[in-house]
């Protein structure tokens, strides 16, 4: 396995800029997820690492080798495609064998590497089946085995779970993560599903409109988003536009007074719904009265839109536990909400 260095990568299709100023160092054995809405440039970047797309500018190094101009078949990256891309005319074992043959691995070693790869994804008993005889999840496992059998320098996954149903998605995701950690694979994982990215990655890069918005660990990105887009894209957040009137005192455009941690230039603040308590919590220095505008019952929690006196909306999650079961949360009923000033996230704009 090798580290990957991407330096000032840029891609233009005609006049349209698909990716700009993308720089990233992926450490040996690290899993980085590219997350963003469709068209943000995440797949383009992945395909440039694999060599399917030629960058307009910038460079890509795998290990110490500059691969920017290397053709696809010489890069030794193992890629898992969104729709698996298994060879329909080959059995499971032949699919895995293909890459080994291309790398001139033969005889006993090839057999043993096929066996290891299939064993790794628990597909040994299916080795003589054809792809069409397998379920989606099984096909994806074969695609993973095929990509890993060649012992690639980088493991690339292009939305590998998007064609699986919800339960299976979690299962395969956990399998990929444990394989990646056990084998120490340097991995790039492209997804548009934030839960997937948060659960699987060491670090994630949030992309939008061909630009990286923020790179960091899942916790960093969720707890301290660096801009409004990241905060809004990742999880839920209630936003208030307004100004600091004094150090630590923020007033929204609708007139709500909020205590915040000290900050320099603040144009907007945000608060995550799960950081808000029902009732006046002793540690909370922000306490508001409001009316329930709507409440959605989501099973493990209740999602509430609370209208404050000035008209601002506060979004909060009430856990569906023994105490909240007694609280009357019907539209129109009054409710007191509170949160700590330190839980507010401050944005420049």
């Amino acid at each position, binding site marked *: 396995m090798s580290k990957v260095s991407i330096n000032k990568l840029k891609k233009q299709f005609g006049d349209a800029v698909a990716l700009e100023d993308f720089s990233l160092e992926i450490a040996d054995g690290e899993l980085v997820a590219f997350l963003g809405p469709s068209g943000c440039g995440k797949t383009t970047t992945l395909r440039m690492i694999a060599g399917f797309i*030629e960058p307009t500018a910038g460079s890509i190094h795998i290990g110490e080798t*500059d691969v*920017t*101009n*290397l*053709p696809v078949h*010489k890069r030794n990256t193992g890629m898992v495609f969104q729709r698996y891309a298994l060879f329909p005319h080959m059995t499971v074992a032949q699919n895995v064998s293909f890459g080994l043959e291309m790398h001139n691995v033969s005889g006993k070693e090839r057999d043993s590497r096929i066996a290891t790869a299939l064993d790794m994804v628990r597909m040994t008993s299916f080795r003589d089946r054809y792809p069409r005889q397998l379920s989606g999840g099984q096909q994806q496992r074969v695609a993973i085995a095929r990509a890993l059998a060649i012992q690639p320098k980088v493991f690339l996954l292009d939305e590998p779970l998007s064609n699986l149903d919800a339960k299976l998605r979690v299962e395969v995701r956990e399998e990929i993560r444990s394989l990646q950690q056990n084998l120490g694979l340097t991995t790039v994982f492209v997804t548009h599903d934030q839960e997937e990215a948060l659960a699987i990655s060491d670090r994630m890069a949030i992309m939008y409109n061909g630009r990286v918005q923020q790179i960091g660990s899942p916790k960093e990105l969720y707890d301290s988003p660096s801009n409004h887009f990241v905060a809004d894209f990742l999880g839920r957040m209630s936003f208030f536009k307004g100004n600091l009137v004094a150090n630590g005192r923020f007033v929204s455009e609708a007139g709500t007074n909020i205590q915040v941690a000290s900050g320099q230039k603040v144009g907007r603040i945000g608060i995550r719904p799960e950081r808000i308590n029902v009732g006046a919590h002793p540690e909370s220095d922000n306490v508001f009265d409001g009316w329930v505008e709507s409440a959605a019952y989501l099973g493990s929690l209740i999602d509430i839109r609370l209208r404050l006196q000035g008209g601002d909306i506060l979004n909060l999650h009430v856990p569906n536990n023994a105490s909240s079961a007694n609280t009357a949360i019907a539209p129109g009923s009054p409710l007191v909400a509170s949160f700590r000033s330190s839980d507010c996230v401050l944005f420049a704009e």
Partner: protein
Amino acid sequence: MSSVAASNISAATAPKVRRRVRWSSLLHRVFVCMMYFFMLSPLIFVVWMSFFVDAIPHFPPSGYTLKWYESAWQNSSFMNGLVLSFQVAAVASITGVILGVAAALGIVRNGFLGSKFVNTLLLSPLLIPGIVAGIAIYLFYMRAENVLDTDIVGTFGGLVIAHVCLTIPWTVRLVSTGMAGLDPSIEEAARNLGASSWAAFRRVTLPMLRPSIVAASLFSFIVSFENLELSLALVGPGKTTLPIAIMQYLEFNLDPTIAAVSAVQILLLGIVMLVTDRFVKLSQVV
């Protein structure tokens, strides 16, 4: 194929490899253009020659003229052939489309006639040599003449009936493809709104099939017009279709007159084809 060879030579240095890949794709394009030229060149040159001034053509010509179109126009066997081909194609395509639409409806609605049967039906005119089919129909007509005591061989009707058989498979294919692309719930919606099954068909389904039906008519026209082999055994003395007239002339002469006649056929069928393409993408037809 050309790009196979080029990218095989994988060079040692990386930037060179990239350039080779582009090279091979350029080579591929050049090859594709050459193949197109290969397929289209007979049409290009025949049209070109129809404008030559010289009666005994040679390349390059000593000048250009339109006089051969005039002489083709005055040649009665070409004119009569053009008229007969046009009439046969028109009548055969209209009759064929009516029967073909009915057949397609029957096949698609009563699903028991599977796609395999339809495919066999559609391939049948290809499997039997046109010459043999023409002779077979000729023999059939001879027997029918004996039974019915009327002339069929060499008559306009006899030729049309044979051409109808030729066009029906195409109509069935086009219309059944068109029907398969229709959302059945649209007709159900019409029924739900109170239309009888006939009204739903006439007011809703038929209009939606219009593009396929128009394309089928035009396509049938082309298939019938350009047919040589089926007609060969069935035309009467002195009454030939245009392709037969061209064929007979070509066996002895090649001059700008015949080039002009060919150019007329190319132009006529080309126009019909372009109109067809407006209704149904030709790539789905052939």
